[in-house]
């Protein structure tokens, strides 16, 4: 490394504040320390990182979903002025594959590519445009193969093997009771399909790798789990873990899509090779190829019930398309199997969950994984059953609601609290939005909005309900933990608490809740939450609705340890009796009497404690899919009210009402944000969000063609929050991030069915399905569009091939 004196990157905009001050305690709303900078554009995201002398990295990706690589010729690119490195798989210094669960994904492809967009070579150049042009000078000779683009086809014995041991990534079989021996008065069957949703985070994958001049590397990165990245990066660089140090940079959303590596190893390889800092930033199109997506699924269900509406059995077969590589598919497969029946008392169940490799884009974690897919199916089935029985759909759900002390079909006892019945009853009785006249409205309040396509004619209203649940934390035997280091000292005459964890702040407000907990536990107003990095132990992933439970639990525990030491000091040095001491407003208090201020007591001393918080043990499922697999369960119910132009297939969601059990409201404003945001993502899945993949090729890798809800699509949310404490959780809290996404989608679809009378078995539901346009007619229309539009500019996927 030459000419580098800085040890950390700087931004041309403004530094992200490392220290935050705000006065809230647990249970109070706080102003987010990063809120105003984000809104005003001053927040430093990882894509804003800058360092003098840095190079720009770029990635050459396969245009084919399935091909053999005959040769890679980098010589022309290497000769370009301004190009400092062109690297292929031969240059990976350590393990050539990576993966969170199964290391099956090449850092850079060697003999074969298994999905469109798979990285083949990387370039470092002195300008991003030079790097991009250098990619065009790398010549890869492919032997294009037929893509295996369907999960059902991948299961067939005559299907080509995409990996050495075949295409089946995981199977989970849950057997509960005796389905074959049970008899039902009524049965309903259904087949349901869910498309590939994207996390659609706004900050693309980006980071900056900086060689330390001693053979090691520092990586500034937006991610969800620093230590799992460190682990994988170190292995592929052939380094010890302590040579690879990661610091969290500003994260522009995650939702699961940053759990896997993207450019981490590539940037480090280029930086080590060139001995220069290397920055990589994906553009929007590349981002669609650079992270995993929500698993598409096909689900076949059969529900049997008595004439009185009591469930007798559930049979289900779930087939997930995992795409080309494993990512977190094993966990998704397990989750889906355990949540397949919904939060209901099901005496007999037979559930098959299959995860397959295909040549489609790799799929992995996304908010509510496994539970989202299953919930759409089981809630659709409950509506069908209600219709068959002539029952109110909420009444049917309440009648079968699972309760504490019962057993889930996967054998785990339902812990307290599990207020399924209560949340359903609450959404049922919430006031309905007023029915306004359809004529004379502001266009934005009609289906189709400002497109000005309806003025109220053919618009019908529908109402739908759904309930769902999700595990919190990591499951099935994983030793899930988080680490926190808490330091109490005096600065400027005032006590100060420093909280250091590796928990990734991805927008959820973790930095706020850590500070709130420290204030609450240590009675100190000033709290500094230090930047997350790998110099402290792992916090685990910011996913699975777990971070407030786990890292919040760790911070609480570390604060308690610090508090104990402070109170020991008081007893030892001031002779106070043990037992009735506490810390309030920066002072030691006994019987409401101030004994001594912290500033006086500590003077120049620091008290520091580092702890690991582990949640209680869970167990892997046995061969019958039975076991205490999960830590905690969070429940939510939703009611959707929609207006539908039944002729044009256009939808306006009028209102979502929800009831959710959160255990303890840690921060009311942040909670509302999670609920509203989760519902927006559920609405997107119901109505518009889908990565359209044709024969392994992505057709809509842009925010022009991949539609996400805007504020005009988002309805008012009426919410009721239940605080039923989990006796085993810190503060009694439950994870809150995922449940709003899970049952909002089926509630909207149920409302659409109510308005249209159509079955709507596939999501996201398209206007032509709502309007009842036949598939044949739809294909004819699409063909006409194809020839009229894309013939001029070339189809998006074809434009990428050169």
């Amino acid at each position, binding site marked *: 490394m030459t000419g580098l004196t800085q040890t950390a990157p700087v931004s041309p905009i403004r530094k992200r504040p490392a220290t935050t001050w705000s006065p809230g305690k647990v249970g109070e709303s706080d102003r987010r320390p990063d809120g105003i900078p984000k809104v005003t554009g001053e927040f430093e995201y990882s894509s804003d990182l800058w360092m003098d002398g840095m190079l720009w990295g770029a990635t050459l990706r396969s245009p084919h979903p399935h091909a053999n690589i005959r040769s890679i010729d980098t010589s022309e690119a290497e000769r370009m002025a301004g190009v400092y490195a062109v690297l292929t798989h031969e240059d990976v210094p350590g393990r050539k*594959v990576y993966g969170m*669960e*199964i290391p099956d994904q090449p850092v850079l492809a060697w003999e074969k590519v298994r999905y469109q967009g798979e990285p083949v070579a990387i370039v470092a150049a002195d300008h991003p445009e030079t790097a991009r042009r250098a990619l065009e000078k790398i010549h890869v000779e492919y032997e294009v193969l037929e893509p295996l683009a369907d999960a059902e086809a991948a299961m067939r014995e005559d299907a080509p093997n995409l990996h050495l*041991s075949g295409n089946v990534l995981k199977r989970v079989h849950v057997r509960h009771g005796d389905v074959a021996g049970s008899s039902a008065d009524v049965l309903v069957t259904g087949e349901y399909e869910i498309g590939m949703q994207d996390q659609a985070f706004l900050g693309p994958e980006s980071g900056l790798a900086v060689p330390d001049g001693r053979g090691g590397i520092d990586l500034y990165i937006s991610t969800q789990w620093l230590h799992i990245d*460190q682990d994988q990066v170190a292995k592929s660089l052939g380094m010890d873990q302590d040579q690879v140090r990661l610091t969290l940079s500003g994260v522009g959303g995650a939702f699961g899509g940053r759990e896997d590596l993207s450019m981490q190893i590539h940037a480090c390889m280029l930086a080590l090779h060139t001995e220069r800092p290397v920055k990589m930033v994906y553009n929007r199109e590349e981002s669609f190829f650079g992270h995993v997506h929500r698993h598409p699924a096909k689900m076949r269900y059969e529900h049997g019930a008595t004439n009185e509406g009591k469930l007798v059995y559930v049979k289900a077969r779930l087939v997930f398309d995992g795409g080309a590589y494993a990512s977190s598919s094993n966990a998704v497969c397990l989750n889906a199997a355990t949540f397949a029946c919904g939060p209901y008392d099901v005496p007999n169940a037979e559930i098959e969950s299959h995860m397959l490799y295909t040549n489609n884009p790799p799929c992995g974690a996304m908010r509510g994984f496994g539970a989202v897919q299953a919930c759409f199916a089981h809630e659709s089935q409950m509506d069908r059953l209600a219709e068959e029985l002539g029952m109110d759909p909420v009444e049917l759900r309440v009648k079968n609601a699972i309760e504490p002390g019962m057993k889930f079909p996967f054998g785990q006892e339902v812990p307290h609290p599990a207020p399924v019945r209560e949340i359903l009853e609450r959404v049922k009785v919430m006031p309905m939005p007023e029915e306004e006249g359809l004529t004379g409205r502001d266009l934005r309040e009609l289906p189709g909005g400002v497109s000005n396509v309806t003025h109220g004619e053919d618009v019908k209203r529908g109402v739908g309900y759904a309930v769902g649940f999700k595990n919190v934390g990591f499951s*099935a*035997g*994983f030793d899930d933990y988080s680490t926190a280091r808490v330091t109490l000292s005096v600065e400027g005459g005032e006590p100060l608490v420093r909280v250091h964890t590796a928990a990734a702040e991805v927008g959820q407000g973790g930095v706020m809740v850590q500070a709130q907990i420290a204030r609450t536990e240590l009675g100190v107003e000033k709290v500094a939450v230090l930047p997350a990095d790998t110099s402290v132990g792992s916090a685990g992933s910011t996913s699975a609705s777990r971070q407030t439970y786990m890292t919040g639990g760790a911070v609480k525990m570390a604060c308690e340890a610090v508090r104990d030491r402070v109170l020991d000091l008081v007893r030892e040095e001031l002779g106070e009796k043990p037992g009735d001491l506490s810390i309030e407003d920066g002072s030691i208090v006994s019987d409401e009497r101030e004994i001594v201020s912290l500033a006086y007591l500590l003077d120049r001393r620091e008290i520091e404690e580092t702890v690991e918080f582990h949640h209680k043990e869970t167990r892997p499922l046995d061969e019958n899919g039975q076991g205490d697999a999960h830590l905690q369960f969070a429940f939510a119910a939703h009611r959707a009210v929609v207006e539908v132009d039944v002729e044009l297939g256009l939808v306006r969601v009028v209102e979502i009402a929800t009831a959710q059990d959160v255990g303890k409201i840690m921060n009311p404003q942040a909670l509302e944000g999670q609920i509203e945001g989760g519902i927006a993502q559920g609405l997107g899945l119901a109505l518009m969000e889908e990565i359209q993949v044709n024969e392994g090729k992505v057709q809509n890798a842009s925010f022009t063609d991949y539609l996400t809800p805007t504020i005009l699509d988002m309805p008012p949310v009426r919410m009721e929050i239940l605080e039923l404490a989990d006796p085993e959780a810190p503060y009694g809290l439950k994870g809150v991030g995922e449940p709003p996404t899970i049952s909002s989608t089926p509630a909207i679809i149920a409302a659409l069915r109510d308005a249209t009378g159509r079955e709507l078995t596939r999501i996201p539901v398209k206007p032509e399905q709502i309007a009842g346009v036949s598939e044949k007619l739809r294909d004819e229309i699409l063909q006409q569009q194809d020839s009229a539009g894309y013939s001029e500019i070339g189809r998006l996927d074809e434009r990428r091939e050169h």
Partner: protein
Amino acid sequence: MPGYERAPVSAELKVVTTDRAERTPQEQIEAAKEAAGASGLAHEAAPDTMMLSGNRKEVLEATVKVMEAALNAGANAIEVKVETEGDADRFQ
């Protein structure tokens, strides 16, 4: 750093080929890959390397079979690295 849902044991097997055997170097690697694939535990880890992941017993048994297949095909040597995850005992 143990990862979520990782197999408790993994074995990385690199086939060191020779061009002095009856079968070509590529055939020596293919023989090892075939044996690895048959175990149900295998993924490719490099052009000449495969990774077996699973429980200890099955990984070790499969490792022996892959080594035998590679040696039978004429490979010079097989470099083997067996690793356990930090929380592996909880999966036994």
